[in-house]
């Protein structure tokens, strides 16, 4: 009897203390909050679970229900749950990828969060989150793309990090001569080939052309696109890419890098975690910026931004907004991205300096002329699909280049006509 009394007294005291704590935080959040996440890979999953637990602790009256969906499956499921059974918070991507949901009113306008201090802190991604002059979500992380290479093999062959296209090709020739391939890649799911196209195009023609092309304002049969393809072809003809890449996913392409059959991988920073898991150490794996191709074109980078959104059908928008603010705050951004191995979006956060890849990426992106999202986030979905299929075909049958570009041009005429 006594113990029960004691326990309930304790419970009362703690709940009172927690309640005052919550009151001190502003006002109390209550009810339920449903969060849908696409962070199914181990590191992001653990990170988000940690952040949510932290938020949960701050708001004892709020019941949080988290659903983690496989990253690929999420991409097709999102439209179903947004229309049928919307959560309060959902992950998605910046840029044109959110357009279908913004234009149909499925994402809530969160411009009210983009005011005051927070807006300044997140300024670098504001453009990518803006459609029709309003903001539709809050970024939680972004990451650089670049060339991840085997430093030990480079040392063995006496190669140095290339800074321009000639050096890149010269390096590659030596690597090929040593019986290896320069780059591993798995194009089964197409988008990896778009990474190559984007970088070659950004370096050959610049960021402004990339944006105009993905926005449908430039022709695919333009000489500038042909120049990009010609540069790409130089590598293909050299035998720079691994054979049979059409059969692999990006993860399945990792072993070629790990066992030394290929020496480099053009990828996003999320690849570092699985590459290290596969057995490479920081001494063996390093990173360099994609080298300059056309003299005088300022260096722009790919930096896809991962975002959180509030569906317009959300039941608890108050809690959702508080969560978005919480995730965007400098401290949470710092700790979250340190465990993600990615870069914080908030400019008051700091990068984990123990992580040489995050550090290198942060420095590179700070110096960048402009940041592109990625081919399939800058171009509308249909164009992205047709385009990436074309890139994959080009990597296998480079002779078909004219035919492929004509097909893309035809698709462009249809897709952007509205």
């Amino acid at each position, binding site marked *: 009897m006594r113990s029960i009394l004691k326990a309930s007294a304790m419970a009362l005291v703690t709940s009172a203390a927690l309640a005052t704590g919550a009151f001190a935080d502003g006002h109390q959040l209550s009810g339920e909050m449903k969060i849908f996440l696409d962070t199914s890979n181990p590191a992001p999953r653990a990170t988000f679970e940690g952040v949510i637990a932290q938020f949960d602790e701050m708001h004892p009256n709020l019941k949080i229900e988290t659903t983690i969906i496989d990253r*690929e499956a999420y*991409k*097709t499921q999102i*439209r179903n749950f947004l*229309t049928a059974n919307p959560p309060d918070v959902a992950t998605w991507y910046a840029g044109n990828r959110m357009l*279908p*949901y913004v*234009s*149909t009113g*499925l994402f809530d306008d969160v411009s009210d969060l983009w005011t005051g201090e927070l807006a300044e802190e997140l300024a670098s991604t504001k453009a990518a989150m803006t459609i029709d002059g309003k903001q539709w979500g809050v970024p939680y992380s972004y990451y650089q793309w670049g060339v991840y290479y085997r430093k030990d093999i480079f040392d063995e062959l006496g190669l140095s990090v290339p800074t321009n296209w000639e050096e890149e090709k010269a390096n590659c020739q030596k690597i090929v001569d040593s019986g290896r391939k320069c780059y591993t890649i798995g*194009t*089964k*799911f*197409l988008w990896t080939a778009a990474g190559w196209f984007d970088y070659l195009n950004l370096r050959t023609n610049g960021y402004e052309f990339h944006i105009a092309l993905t926005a449908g304002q430039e022709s695919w049969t333009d000489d500038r696109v042909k120049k990009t393809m010609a540069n790409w072809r130089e590598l293909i003809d050299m035998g720079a890419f691994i*054979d*049979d*890449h*059409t*059969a692999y996913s990006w993860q399945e392409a990792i*072993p070629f890098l790990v066992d030394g059959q290929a020496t480099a991988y053009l990828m996003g920073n999320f690849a570092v975690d699985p590459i290290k898991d596969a057995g490479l150490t920081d001494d063996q794996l390093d990173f360099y910026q994609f080298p300059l191709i056309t003299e005088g074109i300022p260096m722009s980078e790919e930096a896809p931004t991962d975002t959180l959104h509030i569906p317009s059908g959300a039941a608890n928008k108050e809690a959702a907004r508080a969560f978005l603010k919480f995730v965007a705050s400098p401290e949470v951004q710092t700790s979250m991205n340190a465990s993600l191995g990615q870069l914080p979006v908030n400019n008051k956060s700091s990068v984990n300096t123990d992580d040489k890849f995050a550090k290198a990426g942060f420095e590179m992106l700070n110096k960048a002329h402009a940041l592109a999202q990625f081919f*399939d986030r800058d171009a509308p*979905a*249909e164009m*992205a*699909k047709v385009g990436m*299929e*074309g890139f*994959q*075909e080009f990597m*296998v049958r480079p002779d078909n280049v004219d035919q492929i570009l004509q*097909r893309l041009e035809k698709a462009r005429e*249809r897709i952007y006509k509205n």
Partner: protein
Amino acid sequence: MSTASLARSEYAPENRSWYKRNEISVTPWLFMAPAILFFLVYVIIPIFQSFEISLFSWDGLGPREYIGTENYVELWDDPAFYTSLKNNVIWLILYLLAIPAGLFIALFLNQTVFGIRLYKSLFFFPFVISQVVVGLVFTWFYDPTFGLFNTIIGWVGLGPINVLGDPTYVTYGIIAAGLWPQTAYCMILYLTGLNAVDPEQIEAARLDGAKGWKMLWYVVVPQLKPATFIAFVVTIIGALRSFDLISVMTNGGPFGESRVLSFYMFEVALSEYGFRMGYGAAIAVVLFIIMLFFISYFLYSMYKDERGR
């Protein structure tokens, strides 16, 4: 007139309910009602809805816009559509190999030796496991770096062939994977069919000196006609709705060369980059018409059989 009313009052009470009076004709409909309802809601009405949606330009989320037959016009000179159609035809033809293969395995297994039940279940096994698993197993089998397939053809000095990454082989590679469970299915159909083969006819044929191929072709196979018919139906329909293997093994690639109509429909309407419900519906309509051709043939021959009896 008076006799009739007299008879009724004599043999049947006037106060029988409407249901009691119509019991014989109503009951079957009552029993069928749930099935009819669900068939209407999930099959018949969606067919007409597909026809309707195929006339619109619609992303599945926002408002839709009537565009008449524009989707079909576009389909007419869409190379991806013809690739899918061509692959569908290849699927239809090669998938039928499951029928003779199933028959021969069934004949082989139709004997009484020790442990035959175990052998039968082992042969039936691929049909029991999920198509997704079949797809994964074959993906690894074909893998150009560690796959068993390339090791085997390496022994005879061939290869390596990147089956699933090469546009010329990819469809055949997937069909081979599909034939594995489909053959097992046909085998089980024939095994049950063989139980019904009349031993007296076999005996009689044997007395007349029939054996080997002639016995099979003129005596056994005609008696297996019902099993053949069902095997034919399930194989044709299986070939036309082949989707899961393609999705698992190649995702339609490389560059769309292994797509079939059902997969292409999924891709343009429902996949990651697909937001064209109208165009997808137009593909569905074309697929429906192809299927309708076979289905009406099957229904017709079933009808003929029933009447012939």
